């Protein structure tokens, strides 16, 4: 008989703890904020949250706690659609936020709700080379020289790799003034020099940084700086003359924020990202601030002479068009890589 009692006691405890967890996450609805973000922004938002909590306290007297969530940008968008209760999303691509909009959780026109297409900070593609730059790589031209080993992920499988590819395309367009054959020829030579075509950006970084493969890694500026920080004195960053401008998008998840009564808080959370203090935090975490004055203060970190091309530039014409011309089966990438 004793055993049975113990058994039931254990069951009861388990159920009670489970119930406890649930009520824990449901209470205190108005002063809790959930920010669903993507992988390399963990430290950025850790710093920013501290700043914002102080700001909100000064402004309203309320204490607020911010919960962060990080993962692959696409997977994070999916989790919000399937029920991860985010008050705000701060994702890598406009495309991912649009997916949440299509599920009916974010109102149309979110791109114009905040300044600079709702992108408070930007980033671009740069070259990470080994200390002393032994292959003397200065610009995209140098990448097609014989004997240069390039590491970049596969544009077919990696979102980040598409940016790398497009940055090269932008250079080729500038150099050959839109001559299709010469541009394709350049791309062909570029990808002939690719040593390892990893399936994802993280894998490519590991291949270059940890496994010591290749002479140059095409990487996000912010991630290149993180590699410098992790391995001081081993690498250098080279900024090419031309590259792409990536705008990580932010949005209030209107439907969830309304349900939880956090609309105002959520809006201020994103608005405050544009304040000079927050812009500095972004710069300290290696994202380019959109505030011109702050950006100038960090001119030693970010090369401001780079020409940066937006995805909506006529050269690209937005993601849908880029996908169709470059990355579908039989598209330009297939043409230049298979032969």
């Amino acid at each position: 008989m004793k055993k049975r009692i113990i058994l039931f006691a254990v069951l009861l405890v388990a159920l009670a703890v489970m119930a406890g967890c649930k009520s824990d996450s449901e209470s205190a609805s108005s002063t809790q904020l959930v920010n669903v973000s993507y992988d390399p922004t963990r430290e950025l938002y850790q710093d920013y949250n501290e700043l914002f909590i102080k700001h909100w306290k000064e402004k309203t007297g309320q204490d607020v706690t911010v919960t962060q969530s990080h993962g692959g940008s696409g997977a994070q968008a999916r989790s919000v659609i399937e029920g991860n209760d985010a008050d705000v999303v701060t994702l890598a691509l406009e495309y991912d936020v649009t997916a949440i909009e299509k599920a009916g959780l974010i109102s149309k026109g979110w791109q114009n709700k905040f300044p600079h297409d709702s992108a408070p900070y930007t980033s671009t593609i740069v070259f990470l080379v080994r200390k002393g730059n032994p292959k003397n790589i200065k610009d995209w031209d140098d990448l097609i020289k014989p004997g240069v080993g390039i590491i970049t992920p596969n544009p077919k499988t990696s979102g980040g790799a598409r940016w790398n590819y497009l940055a090269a395309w932008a250079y080729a367009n500038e150099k050959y003034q839109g001559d299709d054959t010469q541009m394709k020829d350049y791309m062909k030579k570029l990808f002939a020099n690719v040593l390892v075509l990893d399936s994802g950006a993280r894998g490519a970084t590991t291949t270059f940084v940890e496994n010591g493969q290749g002479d140059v890694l095409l990487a996000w500026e912010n991630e290149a700086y993180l590699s410098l920080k992790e391995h001081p004195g081993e690498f250098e960053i080279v900024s090419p003359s031309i590259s792409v401008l990536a705008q990580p998008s932010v949005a209030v998840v209107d439907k969830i924020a309304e349900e939880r009564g956090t609309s105002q808080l959520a809006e201020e959370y994103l608005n405050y990202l544009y304040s000079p203090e927050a812009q500095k935090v972004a710069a300290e975490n290696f994202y380019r601030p959109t505030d011109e004055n702050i950006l100038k203060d960090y001119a030693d970190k970010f090369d401001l002479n780079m020409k940066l091309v937006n995805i909506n530039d006529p050269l690209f014409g937005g993601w849908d068009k880029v996908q169709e011309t470059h990355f579908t089966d039989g598209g330009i990438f297939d043409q230049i890589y298979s032969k």
Partner: protein
Amino acid sequence: MGKGSFTKYLLITLSSIFIFVMLIMPLMVILSEAFKNGISAYADVLSDAFTLHALRLTLFATFVSVVCNTIFGLFAAWALTRFYYKRSKFLTTLIDIPFAISPVIAGLIFSLTFGRIGWAQPILNIFHIKIVFAVTGIVLVTIFVTLPFIARSVMPVLHARGTEEEEAAALMGAGGFTIFRKITFPHIKWALLYGIILCTARAMGEFGAVSVVSGHLRGKTDTLPLLVEILYNDFKMADAFAVSTILVLLALILLILKNVVEYKWHSAKE
């Protein structure tokens, strides 16, 4: 040295190299990477509030799933070996489903059933219950993926023992629970413990299914394996490996327990 002993030493060398490359080297890499930035950096990572929370959540989810699966596993094993002879093949297959299904699929099943776009959502909404992207979901998928372990380790022993002793006890007027306590339990004790250890090990390390339903909320729904991935993807190699050492340590403890149980089980048989 004869020809036979040459083959012997060759095989021993080959298997030693294999074990070194496949097991010892990765373990050494984990340790060396974890301590790359020194002991104090390692201690900082382990005493971080988020790491401690992840450890607590992992242990909690493991504890609840092991308790649930022990109770369910015992009932199932008992019923399948003692009563449902004709249907037992089918039911046993049913229990094995979590072994066959990829954990990611298991996570998606739960997400699509209990999530915002799932069919159970209207009912859950009425009672304001949140299952996926909360601790409840993590516990549920962990129970799901570890479901077969205990039933599967107890069933062979019950099969082999047969029902004679229990029938005799029943004829003498013993009640169900007395039969279980006095006759069945002593036989299956070691098999049960063995199953519990395997179940614990699997529950602690579960990644795929938990990753789908977690939502990765820091300090709320991040388990240790998920935290390792997040740190790794955030270019925090040393931190990721430092957190991994917790999992390695827990695994080693379980491994030792498993060996003790195996040893005792053997001596109990003799």
